[in-house]
């Protein structure tokens, strides 16, 4: 591509200050038609803020945005839309109380192309009468994308579109993105997963602390350089190592065992044991019953069959508080469901401390401060906007949901896709953190939509398909393709055939 061409979209020296936080100091970006540019940066680097500026959702303090060389004073998302800029924001923009069809009507989206894209993305069977608020997050993200595609964008801005998606859907999304490139659409792609970036992007633009620090072509071996740029120095790449094998599991009763659990229409007869000092991975494609499994274990829902044992004692949870008392703490996949958005980071982390009636009295301020600070430290939470969690970047919010239980020192963590939207540095800190957590005697049930992290964290893996456990591996033996095959139920069908 030649530099004389006029960029489709150009941002130069954009700044944006929110109260005490300088979200963008000097951000610049160029995008040509038919090009896919990765916008990379650590949590809180300013990626989403830049997307918001480009689409007129917020107004920059200074700097310029040009579309095809013409100054664009994006007054509102409507104006951006009219210029062909279609965003998929980091949070779903589907109106929860409206049906999918009404959501389409709201944006004047034709149902026919929308249906076509749903089909391409693998959920063509979805009924448009469904209320958006009742759909799983992954489905909502696909709907966001399909709606964006249906309006034939000239510039597509995808802010962590893939973060909540399981691997199979990610592949479909990447395929679709490539097809858009083919029709000369310019695409900005934000993701914390380098594999995805490497798979589709032509160039990467790197943001650090609100400043554009580099622009480089995607080529083999570029990952480490990008990471260096993102973080302003190298990190300990060796931190993430393969997990130990499962043989040296601690003796005694299992910490948690599920016996023939079933729930709703999705989960049927699941049994497994989670031991002291173990990280047990859960692998499943979208909607195979993993959501129900976690909800039952965390006391959110009652199982319709089977039961749970903690330390060998049969338990029955009426309320998540019962589960927490039994030592099971749950981090849901949707951070919005777990956070007090208008409250501070500290209050969010300290929330479980006050839950019991016995802790309703004066707060031991100093001790609480220490515990919170330690959690913040261990998870590297960017606390510049700590007064209200809603002002944190998406990834930092995600960290707060985990930090809460790190600070509480719970015995068993039920993590549902905890590294969703978390940057590479923190991920590399979280994996050893989980290992250490386990080594100190805790247990972790770890569902992840990102298969490559399974061997880095887990001791064993169970694979769920159609609400049943179809396979169990030692994490050491679980490479991505094996897991993928199992997750698609292929192991099951071959077993049945045999």
């Amino acid at each position, binding site marked *: 591509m030649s530099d004389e061409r006029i960029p489709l979209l150009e941002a130069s020296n954009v700044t944006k200050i929110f109260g005490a936080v300088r979200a963008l100091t000097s951000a610049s970006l160029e995008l040509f038609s038919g090009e896919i540019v990765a916008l990379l940066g650590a949590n809180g680097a300013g990626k989403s803020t830049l997307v918001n500026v480009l689409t007129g959702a917020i107004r920059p303090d200074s700097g310029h945005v040009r579309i095809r060389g013409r100054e664009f004073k994006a007054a509102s998302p409507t104006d951006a839309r009219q210029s062909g800029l279609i965003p998929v924001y980091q949070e779903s923009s589907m109106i929860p109380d409206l049906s999918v069809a009404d959501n389409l009507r709201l944006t004047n989206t034709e149902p026919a192309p929308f249906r076509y894209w749903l089909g391409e993305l693998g959920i063509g069977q979805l009924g448009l009468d469904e209320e958006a608020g009742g759909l799983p997050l992954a489905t909502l993200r696909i709907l966001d994308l399909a709606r964006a595609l249906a309006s034939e964008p000239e510039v597509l801005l995808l802010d962590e579109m893939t973060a909540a998606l399981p691997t199979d859907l990610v592949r479909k999304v990447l395929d679709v993105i490539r097809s858009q490139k083919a029709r000369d659409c310019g695409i900005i792609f934000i993701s914390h997963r380098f594999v995805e970036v490497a798979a589709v992007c032509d160039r990467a633009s790197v943001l650090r602390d609100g400043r554009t620090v580099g622009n480089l072509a995607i080529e083999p071996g570029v990952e480490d350089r990008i990471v260096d740029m993102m973080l302003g120095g190298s990190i300990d790449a060796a931190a993430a190592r393969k997990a130990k094998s499962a043989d040296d599991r601690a003796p005694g009763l299992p910490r948690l065992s599920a016996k023939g659990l079933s729930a709703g229409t999705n989960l049927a007869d699941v049994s497994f044991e989670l031991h002291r000092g173990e990280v047990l991975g859960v692998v499943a494609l979208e909607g195979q019953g993993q959501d129900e499994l976690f909800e039952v274990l965390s006391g959110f829902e009652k199982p319709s069959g089977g039961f749970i044992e903690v330390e060998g004692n049969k338990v029955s949870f009426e309320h998540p508080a019962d589960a927490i008392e039994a030592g099971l703490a749950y981090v849901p996949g949707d951070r919005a469901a777990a956070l*007090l958005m208008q409250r501070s980071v500290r209050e969010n982390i300290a929330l479980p401390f006050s839950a019991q009636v016995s802790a*309703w009295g004066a707060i031991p301020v100093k001790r609480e401060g220490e515990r919170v600070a330690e959690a913040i430290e261990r998870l590297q939470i960017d606390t510049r906007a700590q007064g209200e969690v809603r002002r944190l970047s998406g990834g930092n919010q995600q960290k707060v949901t985990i930090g809460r239980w790190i600070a509480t020192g719970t015995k068993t963590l039920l993590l549902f896709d905890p590294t969703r939207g978390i940057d590479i540095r923190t991920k590399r800190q979280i994996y050893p953190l989980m290992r250490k957590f386990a080594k100190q005697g805790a247990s972790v049930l770890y569902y992840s939509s990102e298969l490559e992290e399974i061997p880095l964290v887990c001791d064993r893996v169970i694979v769920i398909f159609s609400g049943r456990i179809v396979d169990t591996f030692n994490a050491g033996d679980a490479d991505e393709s094996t897991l993928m095959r199992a997750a698609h139920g292929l192991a099951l069908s071959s077993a049945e055939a045999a």
Partner: protein
Amino acid sequence: MTVAAAEGPAIRIKRFLSEYPVVPLILLLAALVVALEVIRPGIVNERWIANTIKFAIPLAMLASCQTLTMLTGGIDLSVGTIATISSFVMATQVPLAGTASAVVIALVPAFLLGLVNGFGVGICRVHPLIMTLGTGLIGIGCLQVYQRFVIATGSEVPDFLAWLGTGRIWILPHSLLLFVPFAVAVVFMLRRTGFGRLLYALGDNENASRLSGVRGWQVFLALYALSGLIAGITGLLYLGLIKAPSLSLVEPRLLPAVAAAVIGGTSIFGGRGTYSGTIVGALILTVLTTMLTVMQIPEGTRRLLFGVIILAVTAIYLRLTEES
């Protein structure tokens, strides 16, 4: 536009104001007092200040019930009735049961009605607005029935209540003896106790609180019972202040109590608000009432101005405190 320019003193002042939102509210209060002095020179004297504080105190106490419940996304519409009940029961029980027992007898219905609210909201999941509206009606009915048995037993305002309600030393009304510890306790509760934290938490995201092991019903039960009790105590203070028991003594103060809380920055949708803001809100309303009383204008204009000034004050307050 350079970034350095954005760091000027204006920005720093603004940041200070948004960090301590009660400061601009106090400034607005001061502005109103100045305006009053301009309208009626000489009125801002020792006696007037004491009277203003005296009337703002029970209002601020009643408004604390709104702040506390609004933090959880609720509201307590029964406080006017509860306070009226306890004041009326107090005045009519003094001749029958003696002062000390009368205090206890007067606070029992307040606490019970609060408990019923808490039961309905926390355990039966009835919307607080309906629940407290309902118990308010039930309370009024009970009071009317009670009233028929005490028509001829006389009533008495005990001296200590009259002393507390009406007395003053210089600009300091005696009721500060009750209010200062009360306000400190409420502010401390909201900032530094687990219970206070849970109020904000439930109002912000009940689901997230559940997930963290909070049993909402326990909090609601305690909260509404507390609100009822505070309303009851406020009723006693009103009795001391007005010295005329009546079947609707505190009833008209319900809307002003809600107003004081929202002017002071409490959100009805929960999760946001402070008690210090509410106290200033109550003072602003009291000063505003005085200002319009002393202005000789037709009643229609008076009400219109009252509304316009409330809107202006909150709009200015918002401009002063909001972040970019």
